[in-house]
């Protein structure tokens, strides 16, 4: 366990770190310093280099240049086990737990090496003490697969602490937690810091940094934007650092079209309570009109994914009606909804969007293959060739394996595919979820342009996004989804981030 903090001691000192992947400079001359007993926020947009920097610290990546020192000693972290040996532990966004093992077994798995037998009872006692001490109470005998996400996270943290870590890295730990669980986690994190551990919190929510951190370091495009004491900083200071001088807010896009009367998509009193899911959807009333751009805002895990699946036709509607361009599609299958012009662009493009090993033209054809009576692979290849030229997709051709394309180019293909479905219905509904996550600025702008054009062409867009900037820049109105219900909305011109933020985090009454 951690030794008491000494004044002036530095737990982590990373200096001049550089790391490139091919032509992309993920990190360039980054300096990062964390004291023992400190909770240090690491902020930055998607792709700013936060996770890469921490992967260097945890031995997953070898830096091209730069120096890492832990507790004043230069260290050579070539493998994750080197880092573990030096007391560095990381809780990833996706937990690295064996689902079929109990909490206790998972904790012992990394921390204890035993050849023939081990004294489980004494380990159990010490782990229970550790858990009590920091407020990570979990049932050690429950299988991880049967645990809530919040409890799985506790197990993961306990595992790392029990392995002897005194430098703890948490990668966006609140993403999947309820507000109450977040409070609990933050209390435990403060407790860990009070014991002298150095805690790094990778975050992308400002208020979390202000809630729990002592210091904050901001990265922008792989470079250090600055470090601040949180107590002495204002929100605006940190935002300014994140945005930089070239304040690259998402550019607001003026549409050149009016909102029509016809509904391209409508939910009336829709409830979906079937299946084993995190969030049930209740009493959804939502209309998207011709030419209208509607946004769904909310903290991840409040039913966004369920809503997308419901609109696609993958999640049955329990009560209420759903219409697409006037046609009742309440109980329609996915293929029937595609023919009715409901084009869904799923949030996880690699898992839900593409056929990775198949040629590009087949990924492009998926869903579109239902639109025409005639089916011909030859035509599909020609269409893909046209699309590649039209949207400037960087690939060797329609027969290139889909997985060989970059994320941005894959997203172009998926957007093109959804556009075709929507246009085929003479202006249908586009449902898009987090369409620009992980994309560079150019690719994101392309996606935004296409969505706006869909509206202008007489379709309607429903944008489900965790990026409030994106929503406010593009949408005619923004509806907040919270705990599976629509909690309220604001219309363009009257946007107030604070009000929307309140709606997003308001406890469901």
């Amino acid at each position, binding site marked *: 366990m951690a030794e008491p903090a000494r004044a002036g001691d530095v737990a982590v000192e990373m200096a001049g770190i550089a790391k490139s992947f091919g032509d992309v400079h993920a990190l360039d001359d980054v300096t990062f310093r964390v004291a023992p007993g400190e909770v240090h926020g690491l902020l930055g947009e*998607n*792709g700013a280099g936060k996770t890469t920097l921490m992967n260097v610290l945890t031995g997953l990546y070898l830096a091209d240049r730069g120096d890492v020192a832990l507790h004043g000693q230069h260290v050579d972290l070539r493998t994750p086990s080197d880092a573990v040996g030096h007391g560095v532990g990381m809780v990833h*966004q*996706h*937990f690295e737990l064996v*689902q*079929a093992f109990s909490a206790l077994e998972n904790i012992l798995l990394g921390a204890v090496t035993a050849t023939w037998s081990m004294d489980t009872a004494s380990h159990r006692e010490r782990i229970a003490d550790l858990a009590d001490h920091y407020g990570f109470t979990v049932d050690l005998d429950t299988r991880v*697969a049967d*645990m809530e*996400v919040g409890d*799985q*996270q506790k197990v993961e943290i306990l595992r790392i602490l029990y392995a002897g870590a005194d430098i703890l890295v948490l990668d966006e730990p609140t*993403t*999947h937690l309820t507000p109450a669980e977040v409070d609990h986690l933050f209390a435990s994190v403060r407790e860990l810091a009070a014991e002298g551990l150095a805690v790094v919190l990778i975050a992308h929510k400002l208020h979390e940094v202000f809630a729990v951190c002592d210091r904050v370091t901001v990265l922008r495009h792989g470079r250090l934007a600055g470090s601040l004491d949180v107590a002495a900083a204002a929100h605006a200071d940190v935002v300014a650092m994140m945005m930089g001088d070239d304040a690259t807010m998402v550019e607001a896009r003026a549409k050149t079209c009016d909102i029509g009367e016809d509904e391209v998509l409508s939910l009336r009193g829709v409830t979906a309570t079937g299946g084993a899911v995190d969030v049930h959807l209740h009493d959804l009333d939502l209309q998207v009109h011709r030419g209208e751009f509607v946004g769904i805002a909310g903290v*991840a895990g409040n039913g966004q*994914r369920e809503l997308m699946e419901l609109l*696609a036709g*993958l999640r049955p509607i329990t009560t209420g009606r759903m219409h697409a361009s006037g046609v009742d599609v309440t109980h329609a*299958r*996915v*293929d029937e*909804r*595609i023919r009715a012009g409901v084009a*869904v662009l*799923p*949030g*996880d*493009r*690699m*898992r*839900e*969007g*593409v*056929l*990775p*090993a*198949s040629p590009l033209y*087949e*990924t492009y*054809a*998926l*869903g579109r*293959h*239902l639109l025409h009576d005639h*089916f*011909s*692979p030859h035509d599909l290849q020609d269409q893909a060739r046209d699309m590649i030229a039209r949207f400037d997709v960087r690939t060797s051709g329609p027969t290139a394996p889909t*997985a*060989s394309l*970059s*994320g941005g180019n894959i997203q172009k293909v998926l957007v093109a595919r959804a556009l075709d479905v929507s246009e085929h219905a003479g202006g249908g509904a586009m449902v898009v979820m*987090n369409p620009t*996550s*992980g*994309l560079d600025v150019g690719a994101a702008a392309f996606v935004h342009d296409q969505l706006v054009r869909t509206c202008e062409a007489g379709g309607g867009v429903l944008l489900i996004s965790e990026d409030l900037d994106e929503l406010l820049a593009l949408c005619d109105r923004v509806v907040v989804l919270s705990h599976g219900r629509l909690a309220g909305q604001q219309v363009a011109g009257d946007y107030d981030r604070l009000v929307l933020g309140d709606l997003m985090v308001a406890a469901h009454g």
Partner: protein
Amino acid sequence: MLGLVVALVVNALLLAALGANPVTAYSTILSAALGSVAGLAQTLNRTTPLLLGASAVAFAMRAGYVNLGIDGQIYAGAILATGVAFLLDGWPAVVLLPVVLLAGLVGGGLLASIPAWLRATRGINELFVTVMLNFVALFLAEYLATGPWTDPVAGEAITVPISAAADLPRLLPGGGHAGILLALPVAVGLSLWLARTRSGFEFRAAGSNPLAAGFGGVRLVRIGVVALVVAGALGGLAGAIEVTGVHSRLLTGLTPNFGYMAVLIAVLARRSPVATIPVAFAFAVLIVGADSLQRSVGLPPSAVLLFQAVVVVSILAFETARGRRLVARLVQATRRSPGRRRAGGVA
């Protein structure tokens, strides 16, 4: 291909260690399987069930389903084919033979509809069900061959012969039947269907990434049922061909593990039905030729099995290495994906 070279070299060493001249042995295999019309007839007879089974397995694999039940489906098809042949005894060949072959398709399809139904309604993995049903079908065949349909003179698990009108026409002297003329178009047709048709595309999409296929409007449950039942029906057809082409009756021992070899062939052919044609033929050559090694070179039967196993293992080892590289590439591609994984994931 490298796998095949390694297999041949290892086997040459093996043969030498057993005191046989590898060159003589290899030439014996080739001349026994291909060197005479009778040998070729035997080889094609062996190719037929292997080809039907392997193209059926490959077909189902393309949709993401693994049918380990070809052996059971062969028996089920053989049972129904034999039963129908008994029932329609006296009908002219021109009607009887097609009906009997059709009965084989239905028998295999019926047996495969059990795993298909369990998979579709309860999500029970078809691997286990298809394997278990192999035993059910085998023992049902044994019951019929020793009980109601038994040939009392034979004194073993064998039925009385079916009407000669139900026999497959001969293609070659030496017992070569026309079954291969059914199997070849099946393999080619399946590949064409997969490559050229809308349903074939949906089939492959479901096998490649079911989640994305579901978002693309592909009806996954229906595809699972079609994949398993069609594969089962083709297994059943192989059974009917064995009855009408080779034995003229039902017996246990109808399939010396054709089903498992079919899986191997399908994997080696990279799940392409049409590519199973050369692979199934090569396996048939190996089986027929290796059998003759026992007689001519005087190898013990176990050495022949060893010989076949070496070929399978070495080719599979190289295929797996390829597969790993593919997986590694896909993982890399997924890592590039920024879409956040759901914590906890799917247990």
